[in-house]
């Protein structure tokens, strides 16, 4: 089974801090994704990556950046945390472009609170 591991289940940070959320997958997937989940809004795509050192903006990239230095690891960075970034963050991975009908596999999420 694919395993997507997010480094923290719960995280509390202060306004203005730089926050790192880490995600690792063990299935050699090319594609990785970061979402935030808010009640009534479903999942919204922040950033995604189709390959190492490659990144693309999703639907709500403002206030975030990402890093993908190795294939298995995709990091989400909040450059200067704000209270409106309090949310559940979900990482996902998927096989590459030749298998685009394959589902995404999700980690268990990081519940981030910005005080």
């Amino acid at each position, binding site marked *: 089974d694919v395993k997507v591991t997010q480094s923290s289940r719960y995280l509390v940070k202060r306004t203005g801090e730089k926050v790192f959320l880490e995600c690792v997958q063990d299935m050699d997937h090319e594609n990785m*994704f970061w979402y935030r989940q808010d009640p009534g*809004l479903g*999942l919204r795509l922040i950033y995604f990556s189709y390959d190492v050192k490659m990144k693309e903006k999703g639907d709500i990239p403002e206030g975030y950046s990402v890093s993908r230095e190795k294939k298995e690891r995709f990091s989400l960075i909040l450059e200067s945390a704000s209270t409106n970034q309090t949310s559940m963050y979900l990482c996902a991975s998927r096989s590459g472009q030749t298998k685009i009908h394959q*589902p995404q596999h999700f980690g268990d999420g990081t519940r981030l609170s910005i005080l």
Partner: protein
Amino acid sequence: AQSVAQPEDQVNVAEGNPLTVKCTYSVSGNPYLFWYVQYPNRGLQFLLKYITGDNLVKGSYGFEAEFNKSQTSFHLKKPSALVSDSALYFCAVRDRRQNFVFGPGTRLSVLP
């Protein structure tokens, strides 16, 4: 732009009764549709997908979904609900960039 609607925030059903969780979509071109389930404090788990072929798709945990092109719907169904099916359900459609667009989710409560 691709979009997904789940018209019900909450669905309540008695254990043993059939359940339906509704999803409608808007896409240009052929729709590729997915259902996911989220249990408390967990990530999303894949249930089933429609790519092409039979309109009735079978998936995990006894769930199935019916694709209806004329009604642009992809409703999730199960003949006999279990209390353990209580969770948050998301419908998703693949977008032009081969990523997923998710609906807002429907909370299913199965009452004993």
